């Protein structure tokens, strides 16, 4: 899973470039997230607009990435595709993560 990070001032934007986060790629995803998120940004935003498919291992890796940030930093999600949104909804993870629909002023100002 290719991920690229961009410093957006008050948050770090990490873009997932691959189209799936699944059992075969979950460990690589988790390691790369840990490496990229070693900044001082209080918020990390994961752009998932290109990810068409996520399985439970991939979801576990995203949860692990959030826990890896520690108690005082947040992982937020930008843009879920329909199948990925279904996995978040059915596992109720949509109630845990702040999910933004688009990169907007709202995202920039969200707390």
């Amino acid at each position, binding site marked *: 899973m290719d991920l690229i990070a961009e410093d957006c001032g008050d948050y770090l934007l990490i873009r997932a470039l691959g189209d799936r986060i699944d059992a075969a790629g979950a460990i690589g995803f988790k390691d790369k997230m840990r490496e990229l998120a070693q900044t001082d940004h209080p918020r990390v935003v994961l752009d998932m607009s290109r990810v068409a498919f996520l*399985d439970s291992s991939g979801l576990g890796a995203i949860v692990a990435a959030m826990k890896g940030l520690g108690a005082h930093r947040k992982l937020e999600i930008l843009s879920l595709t329909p199948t990925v949104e279904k996995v978040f909804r059915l596992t109720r993870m949509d109630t*845990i993560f702040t999910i933004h629909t688009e990169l907007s002023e709202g995202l920039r100002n969200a707390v």
Partner: protein
Amino acid sequence: MQFEPALHILADRDLRVPRSDLHMTVQGDAVSVRAGLGRLMGSAPLMRLSPDCRGTVEIVMAEVLNNIVEHAYRAGPGPIRIAVQSNAARLTVSVCDQGQEMPQGEVPQGLLAPLGAQEDLPEGGFGWHLIRELTDELLYERRGLFNHLRFSISAEFEDEGPIVSHFE
């Protein structure tokens, strides 16, 4: 009364020779499962489904196959046989492997762990919950050295079939 023998023959034939739209064998490791899912989703019976229904099928199949890789074949990979039958209302999927039996010989309940503080959030245990939410008639049977799992998914097809215009 005169229809009974005919119906009986039809039912009997259906039972002995189930019509199967698709048969596939996938090697039970994570990389092969990813490639196998790609082949399955690109197959004719599944290409006709609506995008939403395709998403459901892909989630369920990924969870079922990953579960076999991680649990049934935890000692080492083996083959996974998949058969898909479809009609206008539903897909019926059979999945067979020769790995370890399910714990207690039954399909796990798939109850979600409570979602509390960030540091306590579960990183797994979602798979059977997703399967149970998205399937009907989930059946598991251990037969000799084989695990047989069978389930159905409500089928929704694309609104429009192949567009054939008679007016051009």
